[in-house]
């Protein structure tokens, strides 16, 4: 069993402290929903966990090991998929930067082969988000942090995307930390809801 642990994490932008002494732990069989108000530091926490912010205090570990270099076992899925794709790459290259999933997983996410020849600007937000999720589901991934990944989608697409993501995640024993300010979504999807204010000072 893989365990992701954040110990005594503190971070602030300048003198403005956002996270104070945060402690959090989850294993790879869990789907945990993290709830927090706007501006409470949810996205900052996501960036710290995935190593996008490095100058924080405290430690983030997977199985007791800090990440330095190489493939990061904790992967972040963004709110805006178009920002994390090179606009001049075709979707096939975008996906292959991480890995090439087999037919079964592509079908699970409803990704059509003809999309591979298009550029990111030629696909819709929902279609791009599927690619973005699929990239994060590389076999080397142990945890996925989903930072408001479905807020810009309509209800039907939200359900589809979450179902596909959770199916594949459970099959491959990937832990999912879902970050949102939508309580109903968290209740519906996650095994457990955690309040950001409960795990910080």
């Amino acid at each position, binding site marked *: 069993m893989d365990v992701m642990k954040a110990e005594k994490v503190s971070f602030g932008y300048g003198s403005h402290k956002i996270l104070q002494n945060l402690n959090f732990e989850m294993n790879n069989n869990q789907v945990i929903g993290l709830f927090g108000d706007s501006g409470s530091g949810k996205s900052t926490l996501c960036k710290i966990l*995935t*190593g*996008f912010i490095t100058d924080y205090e405290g430690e983030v570990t997977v199985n007791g090991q800090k990440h330095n*270099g*190489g*493939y*990061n076992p904790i*992967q*972040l899925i*963004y709110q805006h998929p178009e*920002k*994390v*794709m*090179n606009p*001049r790459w075709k979707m096939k290259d975008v996906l292959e*930067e*991480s890995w090439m999933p087999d037919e079964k997983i592509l079908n699970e996410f409803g990704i059509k082969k003809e999309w591979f020849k298009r550029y990111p600007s030629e696909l819709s937000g929902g279609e791009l988000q599927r690619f973005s999720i699929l*990239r994060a589901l*590389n076999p080397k991934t142990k945890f996925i942090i989903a930072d408001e990944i479905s807020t810009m989608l309509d209800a039907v697409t939200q359900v589809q995307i979450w179902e596909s993501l959770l199916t594949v995640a459970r099959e491959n024993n990937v832990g999912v930390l879902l970050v949102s300010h939508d309580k109903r979504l968290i209740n519906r999807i996650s095994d457990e809801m955690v309040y950001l204010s409960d795990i910080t000072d």
Partner: protein
Amino acid sequence: MTKTEEKHKKFLNLNLRTKTLLIIGIAFLILFSVFVSNYLIDHTAVLTSNFYNINQPPSFEHWFGTDWMGRDMFMRTLLGLGISIGVGAFASIISTIIAILLGVFSSVNTIVDEAVTAVIDLFGSIPHILLIILVSLAFGGGYYGVVMAVGLTHWTPLARVLRAEIKKINTSEYIKLSTEFGKSKMWIAKKHIFPLIISQIIVGVILMFPHAIMHEASISFLGFGLPAHEPAIGIILSESMKYLSMGYWWLAFYPGLALLFLVLLFDLIGENVHKLLDPQSAQE
């Protein structure tokens, strides 16, 4: 609809990409033929004085007229344009190399970046013509001096663009994600950054040509550039100054127009290549 009308319609119905390619092709062909004609023209025969037909106005025999030594102005202009293209090419290559080096260098760390910015600002703050004249004199003048002078002064806009572009790409989220996927810095530079800046470089080089050519002509005109026996456009124009008051307008009119045409052609190619390589900018 008659047949010719149909044909006409079809030409206008070409899609934008084909039209752009066509424009680039034609412009390039003209420039190329001007350049090649330099090697086909017998320099000594053309530039030898012939006092039987001095100061003749434009005619079918001498398209651009003749000067006070009976030399055919059309041939002189062609040779002058060839020299301009040569200077432009060499100077652009030098400028581009400097710009790429500085642009890449600035992404190393903030201190180097500050230094690069300072150098760019320093070169940008000195009056262009003055700097070109000084560098040209320092290199001993002549063809070599002009090439070095123009080459060493025209890199600032491209360097600035490249620096900004590399910075923008480096801070983008897809680069961060690429490192998350365990890609090395070299891999990112090769696959992400280089393909994104190559179009900027190509366009930058082509658009540098007109500037280089204009500056070469202006310092030759002022007498600090190419030696007086070369048939450069700048030289032709400055010589014609003495004869303009006598009504020999063709000495300045046609060579000046030809230079303008050359510069516009380069500009046209640059803009159209830019449209091809960066289609989003065409819709702005």
